[in-house]
């Protein structure tokens, strides 16, 4: 039972662990480098896409100023301003759980509280069924509504896609709530 006996076996036992740790470290460092390189691009993409959505909702706006919203399910709130800086509309992005994950929608409210425009953002609902919520025949029903809690009685749900269309409705109500908070 001398030390000389255990030493080589200790090295042999440690070798797999050392190799694994080295592989993990190298992988971690390399990924860190790639992450640092790609993350800004990914964020810029997301930002650009969000700006395009907002611009499509309020085409006359010159700029969008972010507001804070604390309502659960509200992911973004912005004030759309004209060139002079006076508020044109409030844009709220809200989501609710649907059939295949979150169903996000973006709503533009006029300062006096009517829906100017609305759009369903990309979601994982069943293609050809749940994704119909993005169609004008469904989502268009919201345009012109007052910013107040809305029920399934005010909106025609899509038959066969009840969950998706109800999720969009719930997201709309969240947006209304968030609008009341930020206006």
């Amino acid at each position: 039972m001398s030390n000389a006996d255990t030493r080589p076996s200790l090295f042999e036992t440690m070798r797999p662990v050392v190799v694994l740790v080295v592989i993990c470290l190298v992988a971690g460092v390399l990924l860190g480098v790639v992450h640092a390189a790609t993350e800004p691009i990914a964020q810029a993409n997301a930002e650009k896409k969000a700006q395009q959505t907002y611009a499509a909702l309020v085409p006359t706006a010159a700029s969008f100023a972010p507001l804070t919203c604390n309502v659960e399910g509200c992911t973004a709130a912005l004030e759309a301003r004209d060139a002079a800086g006076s508020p044109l509309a409030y844009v709220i992005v809200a989501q609710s759980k649907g059939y295949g994950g979150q169903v996000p929608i973006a709503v533009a409210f006029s300062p006096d509280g009517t829906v100017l425009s609305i759009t369903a953002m990309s979601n994982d609902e069943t293609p050809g069924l749940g994704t119909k919520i993005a169609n004008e025949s469904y989502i268009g029903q919201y345009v012109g509504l007052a910013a107040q809690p809305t029920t399934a009685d005010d909106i025609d749900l899509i038959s066969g896609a009840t969950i998706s269309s109800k999720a969009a409705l719930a997201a709309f109500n969240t947006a209304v709530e968030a609008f009341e908070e930020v206006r």
Partner: protein
Amino acid sequence: MAQPTANATGESTLVGTFRRGLLEENPAFRQMLGLCPMLAVTTAVTNGVGMGMATTFVLVCSGVVVSLLRRVIPRTVRIPAFITIIASFVTLVMMLVKAYMPALDEALGIYLPLIVVNCIVLGRAEMFASKHGPLEAALDGAGMGLGFTFALIAMSSVREILGAGTFLGVRVLPPFVEPMIIMVMPAGGFAVLGFLIAGSVWIEEHPRHRHKVLRKASKPSPSLCAACPINCGVGDPSNEACVKDEFVEMLEAAVEAARKKDEAAQNADEERDA
């Protein structure tokens, strides 16, 4: 059923290595590997192509790295090491897709990170890349990856045309044909895959359709990945693929030894007490 490894050494040309994965050993239709993404992301052709390309990239890169490191990695920890290498490349793909193809990132969602546990990738690392040179490993990965992509495209074409009436987003069915939504629903996924595999078997068995490439092809392997311990497709899928993993054996031996030691100590204690 053909012995894949014997086949590989028999026609040891690089072209053969590449071509094998496309048809004869097509991972999806022949080896029944990677069925989860096969069923899940094939609701649209673009998703199928994206998934296939991402998997091919991971297969080629991890194959090359595993092949280069095959003499460095001790056999006992090879599976965790392979998993780490594969997971790194999957993470790399996720970052690249997120940065340069955000739409695909949204469409594939959770199934992109799940390439890590795609049986095909770990299976090829263990069965091929860890035993061959980097060039061969790369070609094998490319062949298997493209074979998988081809299967994904076949499956997603059927599902998109029948289920949404479109192909690559362009309407192909005449307007009076109502798309069969069931095809893009989960149930349709299982059914379409069942019919595609049955179709490939039928073409192969039917004398009139017998083709010289297909004749060499094997029937879908009955031993599914789940039949093998630790990971799917590891070992030789043509026979008892399920050779017990050495790492597990080592750990089990260690546990057994510890248990015996404890028992011995307990017995010694009891004897002393007595």
